[in-house]
């Protein structure tokens, strides 16, 4: 059977003569290839956002179709590294959603005080903004010394950044506002040293932090925690994968442990909702109760 000819793309972005079904085939083939050749499994990522990220990469590589990107990525590991950054980095800010950190300080910290030793997991910590934000709260509350933090991400490059603890100086005004709204007790600038265009955060914040590679899609539980942070990571997953990761979190939480999700994420659409109770009507902090 002869294949119909498809006109070439004329502008940036997906072609005007656009076949959504064909695009889905191309995307599925690309993700399958990436999984089989490199072992990174993006096959259960939320379709609309992975499509958007793939097209951004296609434009950055000056290519014109998903299939072209597939060929480049499979034959050129450095292109795969760039794609991996696009697909795996979640963008965040220090003290993003100050109300969340207020509730964490007021509701979760008192629970943690009752433990002699605290274990926290930041799942999908990306460049570490949340790890440092939480460490600041715990230090101010006098709990950091007896806390062991595991900060994991699929992507080793972002873990190295997180470990270095250097954040763009031009974000500090925003972060300072967030910190104040979050109920911070000191002056935010006490936590970093400005150098060139970077803010280098105090190594005392990460003294008890282990940064390590972990893949939420394929790796298993590795310990038992009192708090698991996973904010605005699951939004990139489809519902099946979200459920699988919720199963991993459930298995990794101690009884009465706390699961912290992003403000617009919910257990409502997962099968684990009955296992938790909400600690706050608005912020997504859940306590494992059964």
């Amino acid at each position, binding site marked *: 059977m002869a294949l119909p000819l498809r006109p070439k793309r004329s502008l940036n*972005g*997906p072609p*005007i003569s*656009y076949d*959504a*079904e064909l*695009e*889905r085939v191309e995307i599925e083939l690309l993700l399958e290839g990436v999984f089989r050749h490199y072992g990174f499994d993006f096959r*259960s990522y*939320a*379709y*609309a*956002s992975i*499509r*958007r*990220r793939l097209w951004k990469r296609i434009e950055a590589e000056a290519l014109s179709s998903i299939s072209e990107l597939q060929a480049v990525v499979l034959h050129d590991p450095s292109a795969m590294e760039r794609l991996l950054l696009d697909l795996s980095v*979640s*963008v*965040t800010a220090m003290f*993003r*959603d*100050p109300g969340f950190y207020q509730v964490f300080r007021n509701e979760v910290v008192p629970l943690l005080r009752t433990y002699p030793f605290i274990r926290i997991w930041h799942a999908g910590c990306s460049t570490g903004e949340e790890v440092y934000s939480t460490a600041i709260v715990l230090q101010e509350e006098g709990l950091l010394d007896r806390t062991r933090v595991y900060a994991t991400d699929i992507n080793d490059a972002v873990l190295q950044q997180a470990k270095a603890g250097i954040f763009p100086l031009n974000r500090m005004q925003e972060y300072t506002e967030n910190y104040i*709204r979050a109920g911070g007790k000191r002056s935010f600038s006490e936590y970093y040293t400005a150098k060139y265009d970077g803010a280098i955060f105090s190594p005392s914040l990460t003294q008890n932090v282990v940064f390590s590679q972990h893949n939420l899609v394929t790796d298993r539980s590795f310990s038992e925690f009192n708090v698991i942070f996973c904010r*605005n990571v*699951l*939004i*990139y997953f*489809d*519902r*099946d*994968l*979200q459920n699988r990761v919720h199963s991993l979190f459930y298995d990794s939480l101690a009884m009465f442990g706390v699961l912290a999700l*992003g*403000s*617009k*994420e*919910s257990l*409502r*659409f997962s099968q684990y909702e009955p296992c938790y109770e909400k600690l706050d009507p608005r912020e997504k902090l859940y306590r494992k109760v059964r």
Partner: protein
Amino acid sequence: MAYEIIVVGTSWGGLSALRELIAGLPKTFRLPLVVVQHRHRQSDHLLTTLLQDRTPLNVCEVEDKAPMTAGNVYVAPADYHLLLERGYFSLSTDDPVRFSRPSIDVTFQSAADTYGAHAVGVVLTGANADGATGLKRIFDRGGLAIVQLPATAESPAMPAAALACVPQASVMTIEEISAALAALPIAAPVANTPSPGAR
């Protein structure tokens, strides 16, 4: 052409424009209507409340993977991009696009990619050019492009930019837009439960 989704983008002056638009929809309105309004990253539920005051339709802020139901008004949450899947929503914290998150272009492009010719894009008042390229994507995919008559907009820049990008768009007052949306032919109901991987 039968339609499945309406996406509305607005910025400066958007609150009163949206309130008027929504007040003009009948309570029997049967399409999901998605609102992307630029606002501060820490703004709360006030927008949702102020819109709910003007309509018997259910107004809610979107949560990740929430199903999309006919006759609901969905508001994009502050500080996230809103993407549309078939029958449900996904959120993203990817970088702001032209300083905006939510970005109207991102949601409009997602509507065009997912719903093709069954999407309706509406650009209302605003002081920047967000929404123009997204509206073009909707139009190019065969969807319906509607722009508020710039002279009637509190801030005409955004409708004017959309028109410059999509000169074929229908240009109307807000009152006329409400009436046009209410009269749209509607496609068979979309599935209201997420089915990842389903076609």
